[in-house]
């Protein structure tokens, strides 16, 4: 694991955005936001849904010690995440490598990215810094949020495979690169502001992808995945805006 304390302290900070002059922009990690402008953190959410149910993942996978199962799998985006997500893009082989031998960390998954952290600390800082500068001056924010989403999907899936012995199916990620962002029947996403005022980019993955990621999950991974019928999910909407939006999407399957 990469342990340079300076790099860690800088790039582990939660990513912030500021709304200024009717525009939303990223704040640099050492930037002081302008007075009276709202500042937001950014999160990514993953949901998995079959025809009439959601999948909930056990705390054995997520290890957050908050509840036994999670329908909503959410991650805060750090500056390191953003830099690496921008670095990997969709055109690299990054998603095809399982790297199941690496340590588990959902806190700082970007710390394990080969190709960046094989360099000495000062070089790593330069690389990440330049990636962030590219992000700040780039135009395609939709593609960037999609990169972040798939980056967290890979981290979550990699963790699932390590803990359960599920074979890592790189075909899924190859497919993503092929059909993104067109195939809305298998993958849908949207942005919203959650009940705590955080910017959330949320995605729902449907049957075809689920069956590829977690084959025979109802048989092989009973200890890790619980199927929650829509009728039960309806009872848990109050504090979860992401779930509320995806329930509307799943009812009668748009």
């Amino acid at each position: 694991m990469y342990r340079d304390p300076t790099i860690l302290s800088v790039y582990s900070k939660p990513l912030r955005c500021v709304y200024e002059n009717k525009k939303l922009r990223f704040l640099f990690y050492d930037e002081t936001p302008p007075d009276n402008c709202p500042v937001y953190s950014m999160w990514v959410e993953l949901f998995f849904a079959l025809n009439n149910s959601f999948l909930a993942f056990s705390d054995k996978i997520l290890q957050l010690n908050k509840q036994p199962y999670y329908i909503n799998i959410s991650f805060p985006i750090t500056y390191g995440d953003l830099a690496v997500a921008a670095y990997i893009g969709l055109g690299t082989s990054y998603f095809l490598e399982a790297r199941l031998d690496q340590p588990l960390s959902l806190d700082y998954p970007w710390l394990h990215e080969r190709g960046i952290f094989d360099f000495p600390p000062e070089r790593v800082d330069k690389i990440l810094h330049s990636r962030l500068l590219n992000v700040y001056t780039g135009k395609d924010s939709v593609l960037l949020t999609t990169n972040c989403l798939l980056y967290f999907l890979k981290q979550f899936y990699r963790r699932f495979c390590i803990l359960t012995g599920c074979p890592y199916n790189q075909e899924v990620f190859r497919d993503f690169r092929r059909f993104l962002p067109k195939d809305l029947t298998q993958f849908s996403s949207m942005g919203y502001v959650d009940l705590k005022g955080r910017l959330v980019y949320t995605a729902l993955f449907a049957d075809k992808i689920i069956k590829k990621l977690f084959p025979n999950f109802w048989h092989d991974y009973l200890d890790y995945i619980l199927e929650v019928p829509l009728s039960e999910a309806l009872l848990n909407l109050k504090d979860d805006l992401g779930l509320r939006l995806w329930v509307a999407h799943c009812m009668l399957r748009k």
Partner: protein
Amino acid sequence: MLVAAFPTHIFIDPVAWYKLFCKRFCDSNRYDYFSDSVYPHELIENHRDYIQPIVFLVFHEYGRIGFYHIFELPDGTRSCGIPLHFSPADVPSPGTATIYFTFQSDCFYSAKMSVYLSEEYANSKSLNGTCLNTHQFTLDTCGRIILPYYDFLWDEKWNNHAVFVFNIYLPVPGFPDAVYDSKNFLDPVAIMRLSRLNELSRLFIQRNCNWHVHIR
């Protein structure tokens, strides 16, 4: 007041939906498809096994889409739209909309909507102080409300209202000219920072801010 409501399970099970409405359409060949699905509002409001469809009218500033008109209600709360229950055509009430649907491929497409504002919205004010002073108007909806595909569920207690968002691009016949003043319209971030914003408006803005396409 009579309002439309449907058993929750027909929103979950496409077969149940088909049985209830497609059969009804084939049998009746009429436009009042929902005449068998209306209930007294006070009876159905807190019923968790039924979902009430409501339309939420939001008014965009002319030439500036994404800037919404704010209504200040007599009790001091604020809203960025007007919620209306679906009502049957023969007994419209204040606070409802009568929507005329056509039926195609298992779905209902709205054709026309008659809006009957409740007193609180008819007497609401814009941010510049203009009173709306409008009780009824009619809109061509051009198939933009599609049953059963609602936008989100809402209710402070039971989540038993299926909200169909309907975007209106001003002007609307009957509204006072002063309503169109730019000062009356706010962008989503400014709306979220408003005090006394009602919960439905807050949910709508959280859902529709589309922040990810606005990062620069």
